[in-house]
């Protein structure tokens, strides 16, 4: 449900999404440091492929989004990374429409930024356990906020989010749990081997 197809949303919502995404990408690219380019590309690839990982949930299947992890690892650079990955998903896999690309990118990148802010707040102190807790919360928050933003985009377009759709929020509970665990694992590894990757200033030897 995170990938909205074309022909569903109203023009003002589309325009707003486009504007927010353009602004976010401009800011993200301006803040993108030379040294962070490979990292951004790797996480963009991870995001691109993550949506292919399906989990059976009852009679259906849900897929990973991983925008929380992308946000935690990239900060503002998550905007261009997510936009590029979404564009490729739309063109190559047919996930989501091209006209709604701005809205889809906004719905996944804004939660990524908030996940980043949450994680940064938890990790600032240099306490490993607290940082991992922040990572888990950020991973879950990314999915939850995306679901809420998708619901909001539909509601603002005059589409009532009916009972079946409300249940899809529940279908995303396992996705949230899996992404939280995934983000904790990834951040745990990074804190051990390469804490500077996460872009949080911490004294030498912390997070041990």
């Amino acid at each position: 449900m995170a990938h909205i197809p074309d022909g569903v949303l109203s023009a003002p919502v589309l325009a707003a999404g486009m504007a927010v995404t353009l602004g976010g990408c401009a800011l993200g690219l301006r803040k993108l440091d030379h040294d962070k380019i490979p990292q951004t590309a790797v996480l963009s690839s991870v995001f691109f492929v993550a949506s292919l990982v399906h989990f059976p949930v009852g009679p259906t299947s849900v897929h990973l989004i991983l925008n929380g992890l992308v946000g935690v690892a990239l900060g503002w650079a998550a905007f261009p990374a997510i936009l590029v990955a979404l564009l490729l998903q739309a063109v190559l896999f047919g996930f989501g429409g091209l006209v709604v690309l701005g809205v889809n990118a906004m719905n996944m990148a804004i939660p990524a930024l908030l996940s980043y802010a949450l994680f940064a707040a938890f990790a600032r102190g240099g306490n490993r356990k607290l940082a991992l807790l922040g990572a888990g919360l950020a991973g879950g928050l990314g999915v939850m906020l995306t679901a809420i933003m998708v619901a909001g985009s539909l509601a603002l377009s005059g589409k009532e989010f009916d009972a079946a759709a409300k249940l899809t929020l529940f279908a995303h509970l396992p996705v949230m749990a899996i992404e939280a665990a995934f983000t904790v694992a990834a951040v745990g590894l990074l804190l051990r081997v390469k804490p500077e990757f996460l872009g949080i200033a911490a004294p030498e030897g912390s997070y041990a």
Partner: protein
Amino acid sequence: MLRAATILTALCVAAPASAHKLKVFATAIGADISGYGYFAPGGRAQDSDVTVTTDGKVVATLRTSSEGEFAFTAKSRTDHIFSVDAGDGHVATYRIAADELPETLGAGGVAQTPLAGTQQRPQILPLGPTPMSAAEIRAMVEQGVAHQLRPLREQIDAWQEKLWLHDILGGIGYIVGLAGLAFWLSANRKLKSAGPAIREARR
């Protein structure tokens, strides 16, 4: 962890599909159009609204069954567009072209005389005392062929959503290429800002 995942999965058994992409498939066998809405990696669009449009006018609104299926009997030989709305932002359409509907349906709207033996298969053509007209035989053959072709068309429709390794690798390749472009641009920018010094040093 595994147990938690199992519990969560069990909790969500009743949840509807929420995959990436909704698709609609329908075929006409005679004037009877039947089809279903389905999600690309799996699952059917249950209890979803279906609107049937011909010539830009909504002629019927249906609802899919618990198997995601719907059925509609065409009353005119015009293009029928079936639009399924899963209610969570997934919408998909499918067009049944006028050519697929029997010629006995008038293009204007009123059905002409219904065929005798519509339910019969072409294999058991009754060559009884009253021989069938050429039109009747043609209509029955068309129905039979449509019936036989349905699984094949279903397969082709689903096949379009198959993910190919070359698509995945191609996408990653694009990202690598964009990263290279970003490197070049940022190096260019650095070179410009530190231009004179570097140019001096190169000499």
